[in-house]
């Protein structure tokens, strides 16, 4: 079943087109990374999915129209937006009271168990917590909601590496299962590469690449070409070529591993390498 189904989503702010016909399908039980440069339309796309902004086109999230049914949708959807948005005046205990009061799927005991592992105390105010602790608190809140879709928009922005690592570990170990779906955007591509089941690149308001991680890993190879084999390697029509310390590194799509081994050292590209290749090619799939 598709949790998110978008067809031709358009959104303009004045003359600036933020989303220029986005088609996106997210299946249940997947962890999808939405990756794009600044201003690519990531946040606008998420806002449309969460019912925070009106749009043109067809969009259903868990079978509902998010713009007209945001409040109902939020029973099954949890999200963390880009930066700390928890109200600074509120106490942790009040936050738990409130969530328990308005949210039928909020499990207070689970939130308290998650918070017990942190240094966050129930009578602290949000303003007294460090940035990392606020993120831990927000994560504990959303993880205690029995949601079918979790949307994370740059959830680890501005956090140090320890918190970032912990964040994704916690998400995978304590939250994710086959009935849940996660949609995440981030700048730190390397960080979520191992977490994702699917990846989507967005640029200038359009989806320019979408693939499962399995497919990505079997399709793309990188080869560090020996100088004398460069011409032969280029004949394979690499989608990207870069120079590192005088050596050429070529990214190839769907080539035979044996064949590449003859040209130089073959290795797996990272998602970041493919992202750079796509963006340098003008933001469309070469």
């Amino acid at each position, binding site marked *: 079943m598709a949790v998110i189904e978008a067809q031709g989503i358009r959104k303009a702010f004045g003359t600036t087109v933020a989303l220029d016909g986005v088609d996106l399908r997210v299946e249940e039980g997947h962890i999808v990374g939405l990756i794009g440069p600044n201003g690519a339309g990531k946040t606008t796309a998420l806002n449309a999915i969460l019912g925070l902004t009106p749009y043109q086109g067809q969009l259903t999230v868990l079978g509902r129209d998010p713009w007209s049914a945001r409040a109902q949708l939020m029973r099954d959807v949890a999200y963390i937006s880009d930066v700390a948005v928890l109200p*600074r005046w509120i106490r942790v205990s009040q936050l738990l009271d409130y969530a328990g009061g308005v949210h039928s799927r909020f499990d207070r005991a689970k939130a308290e168990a998650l918070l017990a592992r942190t240094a966050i105390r129930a009578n602290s105010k949000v303003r007294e917590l460090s940035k990392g602790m606020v993120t831990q608190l927000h994560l504990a809140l959303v993880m205690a909601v029995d949601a079918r879709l979790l949307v994370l928009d740059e959830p680890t922005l501005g956090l140090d590496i320890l918190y970032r690592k912990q964040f994704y570990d916690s998400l995978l170990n304590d939250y994710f299962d086959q009935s849940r779906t996660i949609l995440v955007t981030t700048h730190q591509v390397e960080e979520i590469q191992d977490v994702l089941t699917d990846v989507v690149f967005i640029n200038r308001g359009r989806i320019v690449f979408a693939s499962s991680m399995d497919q990505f890993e079997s399709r793309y190879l990188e080869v560090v070409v020996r100088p004398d084999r460069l011409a032969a390697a280029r004949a394979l029509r690499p989608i990207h070529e870069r120079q590192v310390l005088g050596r050429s590194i070529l990214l190839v799509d769907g080539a035979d591993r044996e064949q590449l081994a003859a040209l130089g050292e073959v290795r797996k590209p990272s998602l970041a390498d493919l992202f750079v290749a796509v963006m340098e090619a003008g933001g469309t799939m070469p």
Partner: protein
Amino acid sequence: MNSMVWSVRRELWENRSIYIAPLMVAAVMVLASFVVVLTGRHSRPDQVASSCEFAAGILMGTMLIVAIFYCLDALYGERRDRSVLFWKSMPVSDWTAVLSKMAIPLVVMPVVTFVISIATQLLMLLTSSAILSMKGQSAAALWALPWLQMSSGLLHHLVTVHSLYYAPIFGWLLLVSAWARRLPFLWAFLPLAAIGVIEKLVFNTARFATMLASRISGGMEGGSARGSMMMLWPSHPLEFVTMPGLWIGLAIAVACVAGAVRLRRYRDPI
């Protein structure tokens, strides 16, 4: 319903001035009456009664000031600190959110003010009686005053004027709060002043200003409501519900709330 109750609670957590401000004013009032009676400047029952009414009046004034600041910040502050994104991640509709904010000046604050006023008056009465009896004077005349009537008059005034008649003022302030990108205070008052000035320049009349003044004074024209009689306006409920000004005001309030709900849906955080 549940989310409405929790939304109102949330407002009280955030805006503790709703009850702290009147409590502080009440404390000052009790202290002042204590001093005044102790020094013997007030000892007659009618003097104590009028200082009790004065205290209720000051508490209502406090309530109005707190309500104005509360309304102007209610939908502006959550956009400015981006916490609206968190509130919107909860299964609470924009209608519930805005109505819970409107319920603060319309319901919560009049109730808080009534309870604190009655408690203040009772305390003033008790301290005055104590002082009078210590001085060897009788306090019986104090308790013979029509207190019950004064309390019900106060409640009546709070419901009619401070809640129902002021509803369009609160609605307007919430609307501005949902709309303004900055300086909601100026946006709330400058357009009204501008309309008044333009009317004066173009037509050389002051109907708009008169209308506003009559709204703020609670619809009491001229000097018909002096002193303690203020508590008993309008004298008959039927007279109140047949006032066109009441219904026009309520219609404006409903329109403003609907506008604020729509703006809360559409507006991005600042």
